[in-house]
């Protein structure tokens, strides 16, 4: 009897102790320090064709950094499927890397956690100043009016890739500049088992990127100026419908694309099954799939009418990767030094060339390597007609809610169910109601 009670008491004490220690969270070292100045942990995102290729690209650069500064960087390339989870658990527990890559659309959401080092003027000075970076890239580093949560590392933009041979065969003169032209071209291409254009219907993020651009072109936004969700305005509904209609009404997207979520539309394009593709910096990807650079042309993403530009003429989101420093790093100076290194003109050139992206650093962008016709389109888009996704702390929820709603709409379209203004509005209303109430 006594022994049970003793055992029970012991168990309770033990669990309380563990629970209490866990409650402490990882907040004990809130400020960051310089306790281990000779080592850094770096989480890179998967940018190349595989994780192993990323390591081959990055390791020589990290060795260079070690030679220059004596700081050893432990690299881990984290797959996209795990990256956000890893960051969240790191945030919760305080046990994370010193420096990490984040998708630039996550900036505002992660900024809200307070886990990332804010890049105020003083910190920016340490890496050569804020004005080294392109404006559009800086627009996707956190909520406006707050110090950026991260620094731009790689920039990308959407462009229209088209198959030159298929266009010639179908008697289409050149790349479409407006959506009407795109639909007309798509209808000419969609025959004999081939289709006009591809889409990633089951990938919420891709859906969001396109719906966002359509919304901008209709003068709408998914958030009000003070950051409240506003998914059901006429502009937003028209935008989402216009995108889904490419499959539902215009029938220039194969129904099978509704279940695509793993970039199958890129390989469809590379294999000549679709004549057009809307993608961000697809060149490296297409090359690895055996499509030669002469086989396709690259043009700006269409607009409703006229030519791409600011305001309603927006034709891409600002895509890219940012580099962030974990606030409670134990090598703050080293981490800043590393960010400086990675955003230096020389490294920017090396890395962005390897990954087929555009440097967000002005000086590096001038390099001849980024003046190919393909890169010229992307550079131009980034400079003139790309806009960052909403920089609100709920961005992540927005992507999930609206992205999933569009996924279901694509499923409806593919299954032969009608997609009407009402059904789009209903789906978006439901998405909006799932957003946090704050």
């Amino acid at each position, binding site marked *: 009897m006594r022994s049970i009670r003793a*055992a029970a008491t012991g168990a309770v004490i033990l669990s309380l102790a563990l629970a209490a*220690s*866990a409650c402490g969270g990882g907040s004990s070292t809130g400020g960051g320090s310089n306790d281990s100045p000779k080592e850094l942990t770096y989480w890179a995102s998967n*940018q190349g*064709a*595989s994780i192993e290729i990323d390591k081959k690209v990055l390791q020589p650069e990290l060795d260079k950094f070690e030679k220059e500064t004596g700081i050893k960087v432990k690299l881990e*390339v984290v797959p996209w499927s*795990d990256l956000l989870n890893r960051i969240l*658990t790191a945030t919760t527990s305080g046990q994370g890397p010193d420096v990490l890559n984040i998708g630039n659309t996550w900036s505002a959401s992660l900024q809200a956690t307070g886990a990332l080092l804010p890049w105020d003027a003083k910190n920016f000075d340490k890496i050569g100043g804020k004005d080294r970076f392109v404006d559009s890239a800086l627009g996707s580093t956190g909520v406006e009016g707050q110090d950026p949560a991260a620094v731009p590392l790689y920039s990308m933009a959407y462009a229209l890739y088209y198959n030159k041979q298929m266009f010639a065969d179908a008697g289409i003169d050149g790349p479409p500049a407006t959506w009407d032209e795109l639909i007309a071209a798509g209808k000419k291409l969609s025959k004999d088992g081939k289709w006009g254009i591809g889409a990633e219907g089951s990938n919420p993020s891709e859906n969001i990127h396109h719906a966002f651009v359509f919304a901008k072109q209709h003068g709408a936004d998914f958030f009000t100026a003070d950051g409240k969700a506003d998914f059901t305005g006429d502009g937003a509904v028209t935008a989402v419908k216009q995108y889904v209609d490419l499959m539902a009404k215009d029938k220039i997207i194969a129904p099978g694309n509704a279940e695509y979520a793993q970039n199958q539309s890129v390989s469809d394009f590379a294999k000549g099954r679709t004549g057009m593709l809307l993608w961000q910096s697809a060149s490296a*990807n297409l090359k690895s799939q055996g499509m030669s650079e002469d086989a396709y042309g690259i043009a700006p993403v269409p607009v409703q009418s006229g030519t791409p530009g600011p305001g309603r003429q927006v034709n891409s989101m600002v895509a890219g990767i940012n580099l962030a420093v974990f606030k409670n790093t134990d090598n703050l100076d080293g981490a800043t030094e590393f960010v400086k290194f990675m955003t230096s003109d020389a490294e920017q050139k090396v890395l962005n060339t390897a990954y087929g992206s555009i440097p967000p650093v002005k000086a590096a962008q001038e390099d001849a390597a980024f003046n190919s016709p393909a890169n010229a389109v992307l550079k131009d888009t980034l400079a003139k007609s790309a806009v960052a996704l909403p920089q609100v702390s709920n961005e992540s929820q927005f992507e999930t809610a609206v992205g999933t709603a569009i996924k279901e709409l694509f499923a409806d379209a593919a299954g032969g169910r009608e997609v009407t203004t009402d059904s789009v509005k209903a789906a978006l209303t439901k998405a909006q109601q799932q957003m946090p109430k704050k």
Partner: protein
Amino acid sequence: MSLPRSPMAPPRSFLWSRRVFLTLLTGFVLVPVYVMISSSLKPLADVTGTFRWLPTELTIRPYIDIWSTVPLGRYFVNSLIVAGAATVCSVVIAVFSAYAVSRYDFRGKRVFTVTVLSTQMFPGILFLLPLFLIYVNIGNATGIALFGSRGGLILTYLTFSLPFSIWMLIGYFDSVPRDLDEAAMVDGCGPLGALFRVVVPAAVPGIVAVAVYAFMTAWGEVLFASVMTNDTTRTLAVGLQGYSTLNDVYWNQIMAASLVVSVPVVAGFLLLQRYLVAGLTAGAVK
């Protein structure tokens, strides 16, 4: 090994229904396996094209490429270590617990069995984050690195399989006649001696079944592994996802890698099979 269950031959209807049922079942089991094998031998362009039962072009390229696309060897070793260690620990601990419950009357027995069973109901998602926090804090307090290490994963997985293992083994131990261990104790064995010399050998099929289960639980787990491992400790369950990259899904390599890592496991199963049947002799003592 045959089981002369009935002195008469089974009726024809039984034989026929058995034949039909087992044929259908074999088909159901085999089709995906066939798809894996045939796809693993096709070039990527053929795999992503229209499905064909017979490959038009055979290549062993995927089996070479799998090793360079992701560090498959390392993931495999990690998985073997984690699943193996979790299995051994889980089975040993479960044997002790089940023996206590099966052979002793003590206070709190019912509470123990019910509590242990109830842990099977915990949705993993509920304690993923808390567990991570606990591991981090243990790490900070004692320097024992449980997060990101194989040790933490072993500890986690072994408790995943523990409840079911204990419950199953209680059942198996109960079916071992008590007279046997009492006889052993009369011969001078202690309670543990009786456990290892009499009860455990008699319950081998149960223990093997439980071990197989513990192994597979650890072998396939995705959620905890995705958060609790890093590049050097990543297990196969998450590592295989590396074949679906930003560019393309390397279906043929996924299939090839899956087959390569499954062969040792299936072979292990085959070796263990005989112990599953060996229980016949143990049962015959009754």
